[in-house]
């Protein structure tokens, strides 16, 4: 077994664009669930809205990159409002069911053959990233072992993560953030102080949703393709695992959580494949090894929630629930 290769590929996951996308989306969930107590199970839907909003506006309407970006952000804000209007007055589990249903509706709509001309149905869309890479300031060459495109997307992705983390951090220590945490702790107490709880929740839902949309874009750009199968309910559940790993009510928690998630997935894959190839493990094939990792994700999610709900960095006092 080549441990050097296994560890280097696990280390490369630390700063991969997919990890950045997961970190951003989990940060959005932290705004929803960690800070406001909103149980959003449809973050995959927000990511899909972002990715498809950008890809469709680029391909179908031929708009420049930044216009596509703005369209994607606006679409996700509208999506958040549509979800929030019926559910933000209801109990947490209603929001959970409606958001997961809405995310699936989005996925069914972009999968349907009726809209193949616009969404590419199950095959998805491709070749929309030209405008992004045309802005690449790095000339061709090798940067820390990567080509200039890979380097550029990493710089942009992690730059965005840093900017968003700073923004969320500033927001949460502002008076606005304190009201939000107050809503999480006791909605009625905040309402009795004369705050419009509904409006605050809606704003939090929109901010977290926009972070999800940005994550959707960072997720698709390096792949150069957006496919509906990537945006199933599992994606949301993986994001919750990242969030719980790092810590719910923290800014850096989701980022660290996403890094741990991908490094551990990569390590287990490398080690399992290595064991299978070397013949040490015969009761498993490589397909099953992939599934075994997701079994571990599910078990990890359960154990985290049961034994350490505040995550690695969280503070137990900051939990959205007793």
């Amino acid at each position, binding site marked *: 077994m080549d441990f050097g290769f296994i560890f280097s590929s696990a280390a490369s996951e630390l700063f991969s664009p997919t990890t950045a996308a997961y970190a951003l989306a989990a940060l959005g969930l932290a705004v929803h669930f960690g800070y406001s107590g909103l149980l959003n199970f449809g973050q995959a839907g927000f990511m899909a809205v972002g990715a498809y909003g950008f890809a469709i506006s680029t391909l179908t309407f031929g708009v420049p990159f930044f216009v596509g970006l703005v369209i994607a952000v606006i679409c996700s804000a509208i999506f958040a409002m549509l979800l929030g209007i019926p559910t933000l007055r209801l109990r947490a589990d209603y929001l959970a069911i409606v958001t997961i249903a809405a995310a699936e509706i989005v996925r*069914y709509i972009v999968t349907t053959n009726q809209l193949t001309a616009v969404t590419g149905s199950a095959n998805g869309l491709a070749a929309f990233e030209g405008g992004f890479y045309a802005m690449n300031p790095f000339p061709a060459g090798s940067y820390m072992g990567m080509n200039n495109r890979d380097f550029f997307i990493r710089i942009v992705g992690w730059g965005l993560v840093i900017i968003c983390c700073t923004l969320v951090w500033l927001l949460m220590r502002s008076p606005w953030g304190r009201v939000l945490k107050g809503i999480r702790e006791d909605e009625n107490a905040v309402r009795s102080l004369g705050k419009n709880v509904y409006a605050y929740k809606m704003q939090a839902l929109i901010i977290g949703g926009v972070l999800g949309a940005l994550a959707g874009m960072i997720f698709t750009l390096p792949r150069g393709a957006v496919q509906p199968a990537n945006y199933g309910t599992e994606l949301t559940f993986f994001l919750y695992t990242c969030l719980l790993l790092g810590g719910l009510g923290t800014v850096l928690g989701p980022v660290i959580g996403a890094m741990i998630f991908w490094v551990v997935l990569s390590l287990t894959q490398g080690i399992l494949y290595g064991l299978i190839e070397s013949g040490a493990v015969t009761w498993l094939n490589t397909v099953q090894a992939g599934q075994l990792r997701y079994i571990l994700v599910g078990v*990890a999610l359960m154990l985290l929630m049961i034994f350490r709900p505040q995550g690695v960095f969280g503070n137990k006092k900051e939990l959205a629930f007793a």
Partner: protein
Amino acid sequence: MIGAVFASVVAILLVVAPASQATSPSPTPSPSITTFQNNISGFLRDDARAPIADVTITARSGDFEGTATSAANGSWSIGVPVQGTYEIELDESTLPEGIKLAEGQDNPRSVTFSQTSNLSVIFAFGEGIVVQQQDFGQNLLNRLVAGLSFGLLLALASVGLSLIFGTTGLTNFAHGEMVTLGAVLVFAFNAIGLPFWLALILSLLGGGLFGYVQDAGLWKPLRRRGTGLVPMMIVSIGLALAVRYVIQFYFGGATQQLPFAQSAEIQLGPVSISPNNLWSLIISAVVIALIGIVLLKTRLGKATRAVADNPALAAASGIDVDSVIRIVWVTGGMLASLGGILWAYYRPGVTFDMGSQILLLIFAGVTLGGLGTVFGALIGSIIVGIFVELTTVFGLAADLKYVGALFIMIVVLLFRPQGILGRRERVG
């Protein structure tokens, strides 16, 4: 104690493992079935229902092309990489002499996947078969009956979910996996050579056992710890992920068929329905009626309703709340198992994610009827089932039929958040 759950889940599935692996390469006419999860398949039979062998069929989409030759029993299957629209062509020069495609049978024709990973294509042969052009009314009636059948099987699962929610407050996202388990167990027990009826009984028992083990090993300790409802919901998601992939680990990604899955439609008065759907309708209606009688007429049912209404008060008046909850879990597991078996015949086919495919429809039914109300779950599920089937009659594409049901659920929450039979104070 929580580890006990995983151990037992794994243990249950370990029993299943050798069975499903031994039979995975079931009659596969084309080797491509093992490499792709989606397949297009069918049976070629002539006028006299005799199988037609050695006929070449090709599927094309973009630059993908797959070919299959029909086997001795007439079956053919082409594995395809993605669900989408394919052009299917039957090579008429490979047909045996004297057999021709029936009139009005398009060849080549364009076919489209709906939500399942298996797409059946029927080619009719000979002169005897007239391709029926159904009129709108006929179609509506057929879909209505099919929808009722689908709604009742959804109701089996959602009554269990609703009972569990009512007595423990848990929104169980792992209920879809309980549905899958029922169908997978029937397939596995049947595959190791047990008779069909025994496989059915064992599968129902397995479902009940899974419910019992879940409650005893996981949910009861969590309730003892005083874990909140939201954390429990997230734990159930973790459990759903773990169990789904454990099932896939042993069962694989392919679609398998239960015995007697293929059946011709029969005419019952003005309605044409497949015998499987008819059986499914009868069985679920009878079982639900039994559940209703138990809930309304027996002491146990009264105790269950009391616990659902107010657990603390029920405990104070001498009801053993824990044993009621245990019975609810076992019943819920068995009902989900039965629902899963019927769902495997309705789709048709068994896959590792078949339960999570209808989980949201089950939720939609429960929410429509009112969270925590058993009869609400029944009514809500029937509405969802009929709605899903009827949307295709009124022109919605087949691959969007679940969207309508989910959309209706969101709209109902907007105007009547407590659902049809729910009470206001539960909404919160």
